């Protein structure tokens, strides 16, 4: 059976392996150079330490020399769906397309054993390739993370556990779609669409709600916005800010129009805006998730996508078991 699975899927596995290998080597080469900018390791410059002169210089060089690479990383959002859907779509669809399911399931190997072996092998390859890919990327991004935190979309979505979960989700969708549509290419398309829709809605709607965000609320300082730096209670750059703005003395959030009305009133009165706000008891607020929630959020999002993947695989197993395909 191992031989059969390899023989049937070696083309996909080789292409994907080559792809991940090429990206991996490129990132390792560039990443080594980027890491070399930080003599004590990038972690040393994270947080408050990033302000010191040596780290600031390192970050400047990082931005100048490797900023472009970081911008290119956005293209890697699609790597998990390419891996998962490329391996999942043909699993059943190709057999149904070519009629060879009638050949495969009339040999002495019962179809459930056949399906279990295929699912295990191809989901295994999906996990392995994506894990390799995200491990290299997580390492590559260490200097950037020290600078920007890990909650940005181009960090959180590419690092740690979630890429593997995304890939398994894509694998599940592609396999189910292949079983229902009986065609590999449309199944791949469906997986692509479902991946984009699920990823976007989860990242924008579900992810901020994994835990209750923290809120800071404090009066507007008299000296103006530059005073904020160094204030310990204000969230740091590594935290994930969901919302920020102004609130009145009772803590009610001010709308945009109310803010501009206040600004107009301050201009008419000819006073400094910050002093004007301070005198009225206006407060600044910020809603955020602290940086140390990174792994909790990773686990929750990974669990969400893996759970959906398990349900989808369950549908495939059910269909094959009931001989619907």
């Amino acid at each position: 059976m191992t031989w059969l699975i390899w023989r049937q899927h070696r083309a996909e596995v080789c292409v994907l392996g080559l792809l991940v290998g090429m990206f991996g080597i490129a990132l390792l080469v560039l990443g080594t150079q980027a890491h070399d900018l930080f003599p004590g390791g990038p972690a040393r410059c994270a947080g408050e330490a990033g302000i010191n002169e040596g780290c600031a210089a390192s970050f400047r060089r990082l931005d100048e020399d490797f900023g472009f690479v970081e911008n290119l990383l956005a293209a890697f959002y699609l790597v998990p769906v390419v891996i998962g859907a490329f391996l999942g779509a043909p699993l059943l669809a190709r057999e149904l397309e070519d009629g060879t399911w009638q050949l495969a399931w009339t040999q002495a190997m019962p179809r459930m054993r056949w399906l279990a072996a295929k699912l295990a092998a191809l989901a295994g390859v999906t996990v392995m390739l994506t894990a390799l890919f995200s491990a290299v990327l997580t390492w590559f991004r260490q200097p950037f993370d020290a600078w920007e935190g890990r909650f940005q979309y181009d960090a959180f979505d590419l690092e740690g556990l979630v890429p593997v979960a995304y890939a398994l989700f894509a694998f599940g969708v592609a396999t189910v779609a292949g079983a229902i549509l009986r065609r590999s290419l449309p199944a791949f398309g469906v997986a692509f669409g479902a991946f984009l829709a699920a990823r976007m809605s989860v990242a924008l709607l579900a992810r901020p709600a994994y835990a209750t965000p923290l809120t800071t609320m404090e009066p507007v300082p008299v000296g103006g916005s530059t005073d904020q730096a160094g204030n310990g209670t204000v969230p740091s750059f590594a935290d994930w800010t969901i919302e920020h703005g102004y609130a009145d003395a009772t803590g009610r959030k001010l709308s945009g129009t109310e803010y501009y009305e206040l600004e107009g009133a301050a201009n008419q009165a000819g006073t400094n805006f910050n002093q004007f706000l301070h005198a009225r008891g206006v407060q600044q607020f910020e809603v955020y998730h602290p940086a140390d929630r990174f792994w909790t959020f990773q686990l929750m999002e990974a669990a969400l996508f893996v759970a959906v993947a398990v349900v989808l695989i369950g549908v495939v197993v059910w269909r094959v078991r009931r001989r619907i395909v």
Partner: protein
Amino acid sequence: MTETEFALRTEGVGKRYRKGWALRDCTLTLPAGGVIALVGPNGAGKTTLLRLVVGLLAPSTGTVEVLGHDVTASTPHTLSRVGFLAQDHPLYKRFTVAEMLRFGRACNLRFDQGLAERRLAKLGIPLDRRTGSLSGGQQAQVALALALAKRPDLLVLDEPVASLDPLARHEFLQVLMGAVAEGGVTVLFSSHLVHELERVCDHLIVLNHGRVTLTGDIDTLLAEHRLLVGPRTATDLDRAGAVVEAVHSDRHTTLLVRDGALPTAPGWQAHPVALEDLVLAYLRRPSEPSATVPSGAAA
């Protein structure tokens, strides 16, 4: 050869797809040994019935028993005793012939690689060619060699020669019948070519509109049916339900009757019926709920 005398037994088998019933009330008992032909027009439910027999589909109603075992259980033991050649003889197109044989060896409890290699060598099919690059006839032969190498007790073939040219068709049937002669394999195959059946088949099943309209041993069926030709008459002739079909010309009436060769009424002449005409007469009959034709007397 087998511990049961029946190769296949179905009891009230039906299969419903989303668009409706493809097969209804199919009750069959087929003896082991010999060649069984399943005939019917396109869309009659032949493929559905064969897929049910090999366990590719599960019946919506009824039971399918192959070689004494419930086929839906799909145990390796049952699967290994049934060979199946699907319509258009699917193969992994990017595999070489040798890789197809390796596939058979990997997925079966018993697989006679030597037998398959000998058959292919005799036909001059090279093992290192990709199956996708072989001719249709050669692909069919590879698929057949693969199915026969399992040394099945029941070999099921779905329209095995439909897509082949006359020469390839002849060669294919020759190899198939050679295999039947060699060992005690029961062959069940579907076809819509009726005229070739008489030569190769022992048993017949006629399927129309998802129902079995005729089944039996071919020699017995031919002995039971006769064509009666007499003066044209418009009266109801089907006194005992024995008339399968009545055809009226200007002066004569021709009746196909299933009466077990009873004496002919005065003024009527009896003729034997050809298998093809018999099958066509049953296919022309409007579908009706009763699957069996009463073999009552008409004198």
